[in-house]
């Protein structure tokens, strides 16, 4: 089978439940680095464990860009999601029928985000579970 193309290689992992987005957790202080760092930039410990980041979180803020950005055509929604493990990540959002609402429960969707040389490039987005 052909290897999938990712928006960035170091943020995805293939497992028994399919693809997941991964971060690094420090074995000593427990802080999470996303995207991954080589060692813990908080306590400088070198031992890090790869962890899957939660697929559910709450929308902290959002904006809709009305210009082409990266490989996305407008409108392109960007959000900040608070994850239960105490990190907040930037993410593209799936545009639904309703307006986004701060505080909404959001769910990660992994799949093609754009095409490159005729091939789908895999990325992540978050989607309002009620929209």
């Amino acid at each position, binding site marked *: 089978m052909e290897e999938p193309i990712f928006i960035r290689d170091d943020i995805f992992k293939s497992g028994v439940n399919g693809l997941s987005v991964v971060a690094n957790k420090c074995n000593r202080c427990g802080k999470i680095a996303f995207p991954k760092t080589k060692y813990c930039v908080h306590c400088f410990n070198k031992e890090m464990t790869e962890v899957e980041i939660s697929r559910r979180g709450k929308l902290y803020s959002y904006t*809709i860009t009305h210009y082409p950005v990266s490989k996305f055509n407008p409108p392109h929604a960007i959000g900040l999601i608070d994850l239960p493990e105490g990190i907040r990540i930037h993410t593209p959002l799936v545009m639904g029928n309703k307006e986004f609402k701060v505080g909404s429960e959001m769910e990660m969707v992994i799949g093609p985000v754009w095409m490159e040389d005729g091939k789908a490039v895999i990325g992540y987005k978050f989607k309002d579970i009620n929209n």
Partner: protein
Amino acid sequence: MRDVVILGIGQTMFGKLPNSTVDELGTQAAERAIEDAGIHPKDIQVAYGARAVDAQVSVQSILRRIGITQIEMHNVENACASGSTAIHLLWKDIAYGIYDIGIVIGVETMTTSSLAGRLIPPAGKDDLNRLIGVTMPSSFALIGRRLMEARGATREDLAYPSFKNHRNACMNPFAQYKKAFTIEEIINSKVICDPLTLYECCPFTDGSASVILCSEEVAKRHTTKLIKIASSVIMTGTYDIVEKDITNFTQLERLAKIAYEKAGIGAEDLDLIELHDAFACEEICAYEALGLCPSGEGLAFMNSGATEIGGKIPVNPSGGLLSLGHPLGASGTRVVCEVTSHLRGEAGQRQVRDAKVGMAEMVGGYLAGMTNPVVGGIQILTK
């Protein structure tokens, strides 16, 4: 450490000048600064150029046109704080006695640069935020949204800094847009990254601003108006933490605290501030971070009119980046030129009355995992 004096300032028109090259704009600003200082080009001992986009040996290319060669020259890139950084480096050279006089030239031709016509993405081709489509305006739009959601800011509140700064710019001959807008016109202009609209985002601009710094001893041969750099600080943000509350500009707060301490003053001593208002809503957060009002009271402080010319502490009397435009490398030098003209009493119609102490601030650069700018720079000037 020696006192460092701002001996000369010079700037070009800021605007869409696609037929002007970096060399032409930089030369014009440098010549004006040299003339303003009342020195000969050959008096210059060291030179720093500040340019953030497509840069290579810019300062050498500019200064050879006015006969300055065979001295130490450097080119500095630090995103929107490039100009502040270059001034900081020259300030150190003079403060520590390495040189007695030098020049900084900040310059950028944004309208013909590789960034022209695009929303500016974070640096680095493989930066995760760049890949997922985060840009400068979207980063600040996320902050604007939080001001509305968590702080109760109205849509009109977010637009206010743009309203105020555009009104100030009508009195600034160097401004790209000398046009006042109503709050409604600002809110109803084209949406870029909602809630941010076109008139709440700084435009693409070409321009240059130059500053000549020297020791007090050299300055006294040329002038009796000694405008001094009371403190100069450049600091990098934290790379790994996404702020708990993104409307708290904690990096800027730390930076300002150091700048005040080094200058031996407090926020209450400032008579004016020129700061990075690339996006209107960020100015509101900066009021709190710079200690102009207690944390959480930025909106009430703003709505009291405190930051207008004639108010308690005028912010961006020049018109700011929103109306002057933001030629990245030139903005950090331009804010020092602006504060200097107020302290000299030469700012014309927009003059802040009896100004004795002023702050020039620039922040810039974003990377994945951060909601704080990567670089911040502050210079506090006194007379």
